[in-house]
């Protein structure tokens, strides 16, 4: 007969409590072996989004510039500060503006949180745009990452729309006139334009209905869609074989090769396969036949991410300490400010709109978005991937640079060179 299990004494139970608690949450001790490092990544709910190993190129700061991560962290900062602001904000034309003043005057850290939310929003628009540029200039949208680029374009549009809806909420002069103009642009869309404008505003002009609608879009609908798309975006990064990188010379070492035969289910009799991986189709990290230039995600990737996170938060904090988010006069329908300017990232659009409402506000932007969406399906040459400004992609890169620069110039003109009645002025 086995001796009965020893009953642990009370003192021992208490003494071991912290340790037991810790190990019940974290299954693995801090890893000291490769096996441990792998286990750390995939036994932890929050870490298992990472692959066990990542390629060294992924961690090169100068490759991604961390822009995707910065976008993500700004989004998280926006979610946290946004929820906090919701505790004080009321989406009513009678109260919204007063609530802004309350945040300033009678809420601890109110101004600061509002600053953080505002500057993180501006930063996110910039970061997402720059991230898109990075992806283009490194040719990272090419096969098999076409669809992730498409999801990215969706994220870009959602980011812009979220900023647009957020802009109305303070219910100040800037908000009111920017949204009046923005919604009127939607009215120029062919056939459905007027209905779209009406549904967006819930009325013929910007008023209580519009404020409520924009609020719901801003705090629920758009963030929910963004969370969904971001999740798919990240999932696809892994399923597309990790981040793009320059092609590596393949050594022929058939012993461990895992061959995927096109058009079959993957398993052919007589073929050497390894583990379960063989059942999952897709562009996977191949085992054994490439020189191993990958490192363990724990701790390498994690530290890189933490670094970008701290940098992003620090940036937002510093800017929020130094600059206050603007708040203009309360809405006064009698007196549009002159000039009535949209937020900077829409000033390129406003500049184009000042030539033609349809072409500037609907036609050209729609064409631009369609081209962006179609891009990875038009440019099929699998060259120049994983490298900034690859020689072979001179034409594509020049065109995209032109596109980016034209947009920036339009924004600069709209921001600095337009005065009262949208006449041309010199900033000096």
């Amino acid at each position: 007969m086995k001796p009965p299990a020893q009953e642990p004494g009370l003192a021992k139970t208490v003494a071991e409590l912290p340790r037991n608690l810790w190990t019940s949450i974290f299954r693995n001790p801090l890893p000291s072996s490769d096996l441990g490092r792998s286990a750390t990544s995939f036994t932890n709910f929050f870490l298992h989004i990472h692959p066990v190993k990542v390629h060294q190129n992924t961690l090169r700061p100068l490759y991604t510039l961390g822009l995707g991560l910065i976008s993500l962290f700004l989004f998280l900062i926006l979610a946290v500060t946004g929820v906090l602001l919701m505790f004080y904000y009321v989406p009513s034309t009678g109260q919204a503006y007063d609530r802004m003043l309350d945040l300033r005057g009678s809420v601890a850290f109110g101004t600061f949180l509002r600053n953080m939310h505002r500057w993180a929003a501006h930063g996110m628009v910039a970061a997402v745009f720059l991230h898109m540029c990075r992806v283009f200039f490194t040719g990272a949208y090419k096969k098999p990452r076409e669809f992730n680029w498409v999801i990215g374009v969706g994220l870009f549009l959602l980011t812009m729309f979220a900023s647009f809806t957020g802009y109305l909420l303070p219910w100040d002069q800037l908000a009111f006139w920017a949204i009046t103009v923005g919604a009127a642009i939607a009215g120029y869309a062919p056939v459905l334009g007027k209905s779209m404008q009406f549904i967006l505003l819930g009325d013929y002009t910007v008023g209580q209905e519009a404020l409520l609608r924009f609020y719901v879009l801003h705090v629920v609908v758009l963030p929910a869609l963004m969370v969904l798309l971001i999740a798919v975006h990240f999932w696809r990064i892994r399923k597309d074989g990790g981040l793009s990188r320059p092609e590596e010379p393949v050594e022929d070492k058939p012993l461990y090769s895992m061959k995927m035969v096109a058009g079959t289910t993957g398993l052919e009799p007589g073929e050497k396969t390894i583990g379960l991986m063989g059942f999952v189709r897709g562009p996977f990290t191949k085992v054994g036949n490439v020189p191993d230039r990958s490192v363990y995600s724990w701790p390498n990737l994690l530290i890189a991410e933490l670094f970008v996170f701290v940098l992003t938060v620090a940036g937002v904090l510093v800017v929020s300490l130094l600059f206050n988010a603007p708040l203009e006069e309360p809405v006064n329908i009698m007196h549009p400010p002159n000039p009535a300017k949209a937020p900077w990232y829409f000033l390129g659009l406003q500049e184009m709109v000042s030539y033609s409402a349809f072409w500037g506000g609907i036609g050209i932007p729609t064409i631009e978005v369609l081209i962006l969406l179609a891009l990875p399906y038009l440019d099929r040459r699998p060259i120049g991937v994983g490298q900034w400004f690859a020689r072979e992609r001179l034409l594509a890169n020049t065109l995209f640079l032109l596109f980016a620069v034209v947009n920036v110039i339009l924004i600069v003109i709209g921001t600095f060179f337009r005065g009262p009645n949208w006449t041309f002025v010199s900033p000096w």
Partner: protein
Amino acid sequence: MTANPPATDKTSRRSVLNWLSSVALFGSAVVSVFSNLVFMKPRATYGAPSRFSIGRPEDFPSGTRISLDARRVCIVREGDRLAAISTTCTHLGCIVGVAETGFACPCHGSRFDQDGNVTGGPAPKPLPWYSINLTPNGELTVDTSVEVQQGAYFQV
């Protein structure tokens, strides 16, 4: 299923059922999207009424051009002729200001003459004129849901 031998009774019944259920499923999806859109479109609005009183004819001596910004309309009186010209810019809906030469928009620089014709800037259409009526008790009303031709003044 597709690779099955020529349709027997059984497979064709099954494919009809498949077809029917797909149509039903797809149909309900379309209907629910549509009903949500309908839901989003308000049947009544809470905005300002389109018909409102502006006062008595004596309130507007000849030569006045008074912009009632809250109503988004400018009342013009020349001699015994009255007109109500919209001050909503036909470009993107800002409120135009009364200027010496007519109207000027602060948003993208559209300019209009005294009658509301476009003289510059991106505005695609002239400012519309609204109908004016005199009620039995001697008050003038403007109805912004009824546009009249430019130059169709109201005689007092």
